[in-house]
């Protein structure tokens, strides 16, 4: 990996610290969480709110399910050459009562995962540009 600066692959969707959080929003009236952020209307059918606060979502949860990508996805995915398969997990957040999808960190395979396994959010490179290294959120097994 080069000495280029790190930049978020998608601006404003997660914090950049070592123990990162996804940035979502929460309805100030009913408490429903949204990721990506929702600031215009609450999708809870019992709520007419248009007021939201930005919140950092829980950075740990449990595996809802998992798989991998054995073949290179089409653009806008930017693949390494040669393509390296990666694992993917949907992780259930307890407080937010929602499942969030993401890649699993490099080097792990589906054999390292199990439904219900505790996971935590980290940042890792998604791809490089001429100017910087684009990082995104990924899941890794929770190290106590």
């Amino acid at each position, binding site marked *: 990996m080069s000495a280029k600066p790190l930049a978020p692959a998608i601006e404003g969707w997660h914090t950049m610290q070592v123990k990162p959080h996804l940035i979502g929003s929460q309805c100030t009236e009913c408490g429903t969480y949204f990721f990506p952020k929702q600031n215009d209307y609450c999708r809870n059918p019992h709520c007419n709110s248009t007021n939201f606060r930005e919140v950092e979502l829980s950075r740990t949860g449990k595996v809802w*399910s998992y798989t991998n990508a054995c073949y290179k996805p089409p653009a806008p995915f930017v693949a390494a050459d040669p393509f390296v398969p990666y694992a993917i997990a949907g992780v259930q957040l307890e407080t937010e009562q929602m499942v969030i999808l993401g890649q699993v960190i490099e080097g792990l395979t589906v054999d390292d995962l199990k439904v219900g396994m505790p996971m935590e959010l980290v940042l890792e490179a998604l791809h490089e540009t001429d100017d910087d290294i684009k990082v995104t959120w990924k899941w890794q097994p929770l190290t106590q």
Partner: protein
Amino acid sequence: MSDEIAILGAGMHPWGKWGHNFVQYGVAAAREALADAGVPWQDIKFVSGGATIRCGYPGFVAGATFAQALGWQGAEVNTSYAACASGSQALAAARNKILSGECDVALVVGADTTPKGFLAPAGGYRPEDPDWVRFYLGITNPTYFALYARRRIDLYGDTLEDFAAVKVKNSLVGSKNPRARYRKCFTAEDVAASAMVADPLRLMDICATSDGGAALIVSSLEYARKLGKPNAPRVAAISTVTPTFASGVLEMPDIATDSAAASGVEAHAYRSMIPLKAYEEAGIGPEDISLAEVYDLSTALELDWIEDLQLAPRGESAGLLRAGDTALGGKIPVNVSGGLACFGEAVPAQALSQICELTWQLRGEAGDRQVEGAQVGITANQGLFGHGSSVIVKK
């Protein structure tokens, strides 16, 4: 019951990768359905089309496009777009027109042509588009099917051999269907030798996209009697319900589910809710079903659908499969058309093709695929953006 309509005719252009305009498939299916019904085109009062979004303006106004191709004769038209449920929504529009007394006989038709090359989202930097986001992060369509399949393995003990057995079962019966695209009998060894795409799903566990067209002629029960077809199969229920908040299942193309954190809100699984309205509307229960046509986008998804239709308790459909109960000749045959495994998906035609199969089965005209004594059939499908449907057809 007065809220039923009759299915007088069914027709399909064979599924394949023919490379023709979608209109050609729709016209062929419509003409076959008209001939099957014994209803002249000039007598059709309403043409209800399933839209295709891949074929430009004619696809957006499919009802009118098919009416023009068959020869303008003044019929009113409708076009429905509801992803995989488009055909069912087009059928629902025809049913409303018939039950309201505005029209006595209608044509429902859908057709599609597969895109040339890979259908990828538009480029640029567009984080407001969930489809762009998920492809950028490396999440493809098989990812979602594989997440559902993996839960079956970890929670219920299903195996790769079970998934392969679905493919083997469907390819055996699909080999007897002249309208199917893939008519080769595959073995468990063939499936196991195909490349892993999204673990635990292999290439042969996942359905392709196809060209195809399907059509139905539907009418009031009175019109059917006058035509001398008082015993034509009937549409007993159509469910096209949307999800109930909060959706707790990761659905394509989303990167996250709804949150069920608010008080009074609980997480729901949309797929299992689609048939509920159909059963209620028909006054028919899962125990009455003779056969089911379900949306097997993957082999494992067929097993999920069997439980969503309550044909087996949650987690137990692989047991039915292993016992041969879901095969032709079993207690509750599933996908005796061959399913998407043998057809591939032609979105606006697919829900109608499921009903075509039920129609032929209930008339006892399914030949080598015939389910003995078929009385009641159910379809089920689910697509993007909260679209899904389930239709019950009975004798």
